[in-house]
């Protein structure tokens, strides 16, 4: 909900904010790019936790039979 996150919180104890317009909903392409940014952030994070040497790690994961 990128559009919602950009809205200004309504303040109850001051009137000053009244003139500040709520941010308009993000246009579709901006939402798409925000989603892409989210995926990029996620992939960056996962790069940091993935085991090193993928090929060797995957090859060494050998299980005996189960049910």
């Amino acid at each position, binding site marked *: 909900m990128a559009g919602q996150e950009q809205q200004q919180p309504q303040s109850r104890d001051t009137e000053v904010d009244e003139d500040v317009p709520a941010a308009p909903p993000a246009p579709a392409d901006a939402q798409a790019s925000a989603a892409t940014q989210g*995926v*990029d952030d*996620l*992939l960056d*994070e*996962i790069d940091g*936790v*993935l*085991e090193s040497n*993928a*090929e060797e*790690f*995957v*090859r*060494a*994961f*050998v*299980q*005996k*039979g*189960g*049910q």
Partner: protein
Amino acid sequence: MTAVVPGKPADTAGGLPVGGAMRVMGSETEYGIHAPSAPGANATMMSARVIQAYAQVTRQRAAGGAETRWDYTDEEPLHDARGWTLERSSADPEQLTDQPPVLDAEAIALAYGRQELEADGEDESGTLLMNMVLGNGARLYVDHAHPEYSSPEVTNPRAAVTWDAAGDLVALAAVRRLAADPELPPINLYKNNTDNKSVSYGSHENYLMPRSVPFGEIVRGLTPFFVTRQIICGAGRVGLGQDSARAGYQISQRADFFETEVGLETTIRRPIINTRDEPHATADKYRRLHVIIGDANLSQASNFLKFGTTAMVLSLIEAGLAPRIEVHEPVAALQAVSHDTSLTGLLRLGDGRRISALDLQWIYFEAASKHAQDTGVADAVDGDGHTHEVLERWSATLSELGGDRAAAASSVEWLAKLSLLEGYRQRDGLGWDNARLGLVDLQWADIRPEKGLYYRLLARDRMRRIVDDAAIARAVTEPPSDTRAYFRGRCVSRFGADLAGASWDSVIFDVPGRGRLQRVPTREPLRGTEALTGGLFARHREAGTFLAELLGLSPGS
């Protein structure tokens, strides 16, 4: 032998509302096990170390030792639901699950008493502890070459998700314990079902059913459902074929390992419908339907639907209202569905019609929904409290799968994993045969929150929660209140030091001052509840007086 756990006589539904998603059920998870720094380590020995490590954790938690040995006397793995018993001599050795894998610790306990077993879980021959009953009513043990957690019996899909996820925390606690031991290599556990090198290990579901339902009706009603159920609860897999010889992505971890439609085996020639008839309950009244076709789920929403929809389809079958559909060549269809991530392929039915997996699921949904409305259990206010939610999630998920797949990716596990893999493919231009994608698939299922990729998505609120973290954490130590698991779990937590063993349908006491072991049968799954036995536990702090009241004996007799 002398008494059963008190309770009112139960019919086969046991007083649970019929027609919807409530019934006695439970899960079994065999974890993939790997010690990266000790690649040649014996898998059975490593699995025993996991059990041992958890025994150390529980001993710290409870001074009395919240661990109890398993009692094998009611295991009947060779009984076939179709009405015969396989001869031991013709059984595959892996089917003989009624024998302890090593030394018969239970037999020793029954013959001599607990003093023959050292308190640290290792007996004089140096055999490692292979089997535990936990304070939450679950069983934790070595099954073949994997550690397995079998959840306590629960009565609804939400509780099934809760106590299944609690098993992942049990496994995590063992992994942490081992990682902190400088003498032992760290062990990783994975909640998945294949090593992608031709080996699969199971994640099973169990559902209690009245024995009066003909088994043929179960096979007819369930097979089309099981062929297509994976689209809502498959866990996703990189690689096609048992040994991943072909590159690609598929919906199910397990589909390529199924070779027949109906059968007794679980480790070879795996059948879509498993006929193991081991009710762990009053045998003339119940059967325990042993479902072996599911994937292990980390996604709570997929797991919830796996149990909830299956329980509802069983209610349809019991009422004689299952859709009259026959899928042509179900094993091939199962694999075709798994390999069709676009969900556009059509299945051929016995009458020649062709239908998509999604539409076949909608047919089951409509039938289950109508039956649940007719019986009143689906009402949001006056229903059974579970069926309404299952139907809502089921229809929302099928709708999303038909249109908004991005929305479905926050609940359907194979789609969540696929969206992550597609992110890597697009960013780094990786083909499906790239080892990095294989690693993402494997590490998706690492049960450590800092390493497991499912847990990374969960932390970012990209995965839907069905139960909150606090409820799962409680379920690590607390049994469900509404089944016999309550009695078993409370006995283990309260009187662990005075127990010689326990199983699904018994708890064996070895109380000092009593000459022989006292076996308390618990053959009715819906007795031994908190409502029926909570007062007994409240009145007694000592096993001797507890047992005396339970068995109607005078103390010390």
